[in-house]
């Protein structure tokens, strides 16, 4: 197991390097002078030149990349053009609300998704199955920003139950996490169903039945345990969907997280922040996928030996 873990961690290094290089190149691909982009729209010619020297933009590209990497490792992500504050500080202020939101979304999506999946598989091809799977395919097709707006209209404007936005107190997390988790809940439901249906066909289930085990014991004690392995993978793969979705959902609810920071920064052309955020989103996604891989290999030892 440890060997596998080390192997996976080592294989991560080249990927992280390439991703960081692409993100580093971001500022150079944008049409225009990188020094001007980083100094801001209103900077004078002198300030632009100063930025060029202080940010090392006059050095060869490979050297700039090494400086960028070194800075990253020491936690220096540059300074915001808009506020002049260190980017790491801006991100630090916003990261907790976003993590809380994504965590809450995935938790309810897993609980409800697995429940719908199990009910659908147990009542296969009967009305609860049709209803469950229709809910699932609807969930995948729902635009999360629309769900957010409809929730605001219903629960904030009409019923006055939850605040329309912000991140003050737990009640402001409920509607955004629902809007964000709906799509993943739907995918988890579909995968749980198909995986459980597959497990129920296995010999050990027939064996369990022959032994006289009750349906509940067969489903929850045996079949579901094995069916959840692919579900774990799907949940991990969909984490990227959650990160992207958080940008949209945060915008709907004016939620003070990384997503709204990204959109504000794009609109203000605050490129150091945009660059750092894209790198952060990619790294989060890579790390979560690695964790899922390791969990998967722990649950299914066949993978480790391949």
């Amino acid at each position, binding site marked *: 197991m440890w060997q596998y873990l080390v192997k996976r961690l080592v294989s991560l290094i080249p*990927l992280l390097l*390439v*991703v960081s290089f*692409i993100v580093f190149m*971001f500022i150079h*691909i*944008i049409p225009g002078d990188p020094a001007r982009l980083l100094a801001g729209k209103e900077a004078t010619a002198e300030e632009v030149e100063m930025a060029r020297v202080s940010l090392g933009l006059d050095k060869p590209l490979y050297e700039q990349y090494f400086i960028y990497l070194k800075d990253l490792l020491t936690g220096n992500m540059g300074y915001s053009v808009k506020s002049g504050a260190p980017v790491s500080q801006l991100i630090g202020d916003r990261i907790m609300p976003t993590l809380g939101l994504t965590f809450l979304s995935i938790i309810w999506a897993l609980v409800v998704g697995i429940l719908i999946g199990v009910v659908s598989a147990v009542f296969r091809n009967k009305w609860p199955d049709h209803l469950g799977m229709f809910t699932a*395919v*609807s969930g*995948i*097709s*729902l*635009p*999360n*920003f*629309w769900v957010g*707006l*409809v929730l*605001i*209209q219903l629960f904030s*404007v009409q019923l006055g139950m939850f605040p329309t936005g912000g991140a003050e107190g737990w009640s402001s997390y409920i509607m955004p996490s629902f809007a964000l988790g709906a799509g993943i809940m739907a995918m988890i439901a*579909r995968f749980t*169903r*198909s995986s459980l*249906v597959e497990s129920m066909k296995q010999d050990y289930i027939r064996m369990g039945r022959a032994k006289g085990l009750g349906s509940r014991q067969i489903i929850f004690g045996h079949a579901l345990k094995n069916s959840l392995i692919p579900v774990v993978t799907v949940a991990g793969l969909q*984490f*990227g*969907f959650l*990160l*992207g*979705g958080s*940008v*949209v959902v945060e*915008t*709907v609810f004016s939620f003070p997280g990384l997503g709204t920071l*990204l*959109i504000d920064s*794009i*609109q203000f052309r605050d490129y150091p922040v*945009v660059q750092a955020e*894209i790198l952060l*989103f*990619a790294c989060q*996604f*890579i790390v979560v996928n690695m964790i899922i891989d390791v969990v998967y290999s722990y649950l299914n030892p066949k993978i480790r030996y391949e």
Partner: protein
Amino acid sequence: MSNLQTETALNIEPIKTKSDHRFLQFWRLFRRKKPAVISFYFVLFLFIMAIIGPFVTPFDAAKPDYNSVLETPSASHWFGTDEYGRDILSRIIAGARISLSVSVSAVTLGAIVGSILGLISGFFGKWVDKLIMRICDVLFAFPELILAIGIVAILGPGLNNVIIAVAFFSVPSFARIVRGATLEVKEMLFVEAEESLGASRLRIMFKHVFPETLPTIIVYYTMNVGTAILAAASLSFLGLGAEPSSPDWGAMLSVSRDYIGTAFHLVFFPGLVIFLTVLAFNLLGDGLREMLDPKMKD
């Protein structure tokens, strides 16, 4: 001579009937899948709207009418009117062209590039395969919408850039899926037979392997159009896609945010249409998947 004619006729006819038979067989089976059939007709209707929409809208989709600002749904304005008094139903019909053309062009672009890469990767193997798959891994490292947002941040807002951004994130998934399908087809006997007959690799790849991977591509394409509509609408909603004044469905929702609580119909109808359109593409994709790709069946 007459003998030869009979022979030719005999040679051609069975092939023709066979292909007809296959198509009819396909249709007969497809017809049984009610949700997929309804979705198919809905998608067909949307495409017709996208083509003839601007000629059949009950009102001018762009012309303001300050006498009927923010009217709720009524007999003359089924979906109500917006902040400039424009008929929302007319704007949704006019917007079908934008939403469908953006998503279909993006997925087509992504599918062409991705399928070619996947085909090359699976067929040639070795270092070519490794290189292409590593490039895909890097693209997969970015969450889809974040990648699209990053690309739009580089290229600037606008629908053409949305097409490029959405196409970009569909490339690696098409490449992977087509690669998988190619690897399977490559092992089939008829490819070996072609090779032994001396057919060139390029010919085998495009004439024989590619058609076999088509069902997978079609299924994946249909499902991806739904995803692309959602992604493009999200980008427009974030102010990175269509102009706020255009009848793009995502842009309409973006503007409607300011009227939540006062004119909910502005929020409700464009979102409902996005939802139904994506749902139709997903259900159609599901139906096609069950028909064309039994392996992928749930």
